[in-house]
C-alpha cells in the first residue's frame, strides 16, 4: 500500500465509501485505486512505484500532472528535477497517450521523479508498410490486391472506426482467433494498431 498523509488518506477512504467499520471498531483495507491500466499489463508488471495509464493533462502553474488509469484519476506533482523522456515538454504530450510516472511521496503528495512517454515500437524497416502503400492496396480491394488487413486493437476501437476491408483480431486474443486469418500462407498480411509511430 502506498502511504499518503493520514488526514488525506482518511478523507479519501470516507469519500469512496469503502471505509468498512467492523463491530469492534477496527477498519478493513479498502480496494486501492489501480496503478496500472489494463492495456499496459500486456507488457508491464504492476509496480507500486510506477503509475501507468493515459496522459490526462498538465498544469505548469500547479506543477501537477493528471493521469487516467481505468476509472481512477491520479494527480502527481512534478518539479524541475522530474525527468521527462519521450517528449520535449509536458504540454507536447498528446491527450490519452500512454505514459508511465515513477512516483515517490513528498510532503504528503505523490511526486514524479520521472515521466516517460511510450516510445514507438521498433520494427524492422523491411517489415513496415507505409500508409501510402496501404491506401493503394485498400483502393484495389482485398481480392485484387491479394492481401488481408488485420486491425489488432480491441473490438470496440475497430467498431468505432477502422480501415475499410480490415478484419478485427484483438492482439490480446490473437491465439484463439488465429482461424480468422486466411488459409493461404503466401498471402500478404498487414497488421495495424493504435500507432507504432
Amino acid at each position, binding site marked *: 500500500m502506498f502511504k499518503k498523509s493520514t488526514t488525506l488518506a482518511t478523507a479519501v477512504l470516507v469519500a469512496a465509501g469503502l471505509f468498512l467499520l467492523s463491530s469492534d471498531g477496527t477498519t478493513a483495507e479498502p480496494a486501492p485505486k489501480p496503478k496500472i491500466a489494463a492495456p499496459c499489463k500486456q507488457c508491464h508488471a504492476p509496480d507500486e512505484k510506477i503509475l501507468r495509464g493515459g496522459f490526462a493533462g498538465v498544469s505548469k502553474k500547479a506543477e501537477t500532472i493528471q493521469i487516467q488509469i481505468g476509472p481512477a484519476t491520479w494527480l502527481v506533482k512534478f518539479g524541475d528535477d522530474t525527468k521527462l523522456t519521450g517528449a520535449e515538454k509536458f504540454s507536447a504530450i498528446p491527450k490519452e497517450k500512454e505514459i508511465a510516472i515513477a512516483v515517490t511521496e513528498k510532503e504528503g503528495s505523490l511526486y514524479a521523479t520521472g515521466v516517460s512517454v511510450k516510445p514507438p515500437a521498433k520494427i524492422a524497416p523491411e517489415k513496415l508498410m507505409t500508409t501510402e502503400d496501404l491506401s493503394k492496396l*485498400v483502393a484495389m480491394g482485398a481480392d485484387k490486391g491479394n492481401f488481408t488487413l488485420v486491425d489488432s486493437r480491441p473490438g470496440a476501437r475497430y467498431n468505432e472506426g477502422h480501415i475499410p476491408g480490415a478484419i478485427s483480431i484483438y492482439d490480446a486474443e490473437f491465439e484463439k482467433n488465429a482461424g480468422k486469418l486466411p488459409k493461404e500462407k503466401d498471402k500478404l498480411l498487414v497488421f495495424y494498431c493504435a500507432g507504432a509511430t
Partner: protein
Amino acid sequence: MPAWKKAGNLVASTVINLKEAMDKDIPHVLIDIRPADEAKKEHIKGAVSIPLNELATSKDRFPADKKAPIIIYCSTVKASEEAFAVVRKWGYSNLSYLDGSIEAWKKAGNPVVSGDLATTIVYVPKPRPGEISIDEFKGIAETKPGDKLILDVRDVDEASSGMLIGARNIPTKDITSKLSDIPKDKEIITHCITGVRAEMAYHQLKEAGYKVRFLNADIKIDKDGKYEITKE
C-alpha cells in the same frame, strides 16, 4: 490507425458501434446522404438528411466541435467515399462511413423508420465528469447562493489581478494542505483560466469528501470582478 486517419484516408465504422452510441446516449451525428425522397421511404432513426448534392454547400450545418463523431451512410460505397472526402476536408477527425450502410443495419436486426428526417444537426458533447454548465456557473456567480462557494484555484498572483465577487482563492497546488479553509457544508465550484487546474482541484476535493464541480471553459476576469466565459 492514427497515421491513416491523419492522412485523411477513408475510415469505416460498424453497425455495432452505431447501435451502442444510440443505446448508451453517446453523442454522435448520423447523416443520411442519399437523395431526400429515398431517405424518406426508409432510414435509420435519428439520422439527419443531407443529400450528397447539397453536402458541399452545407458546411455551416456541421458542429463546431471538430472531434464530434460523425457517421455517414449512403446506398453506394462510391457515394460514401465522395461524401467522406468532402467532410474530412473540413477537419472532422472522427468521421466514418457506416460499413454495409442501412442494409447491414437491417441485417443485424435493427429497426428502420420512414417519414421526414431532421435537416438540422444537433450535437452536444458529453461533459467531463464533474463539469458544470457555463449557464449554471454564471447563475451561481450572479446570485451567490449560500450553499455554494466558487473557489478560484489560480495562483495568488493571478487572482490578485481580479477575482469573481464572492469567490475564494486557494491555488490547486495548496488545496490538500488547506482543506480546513474550505467549508464542507457547501458545494464547491472550482475555476481557473482554462479548466485544467479546476479539474485537478475537483479531483482533489472529491477525494477529500467534498461535493464539488468545476468550470471546464476559458474565463477572463477583470479587476472589478467582471468576467467573460468562452468555450471553443
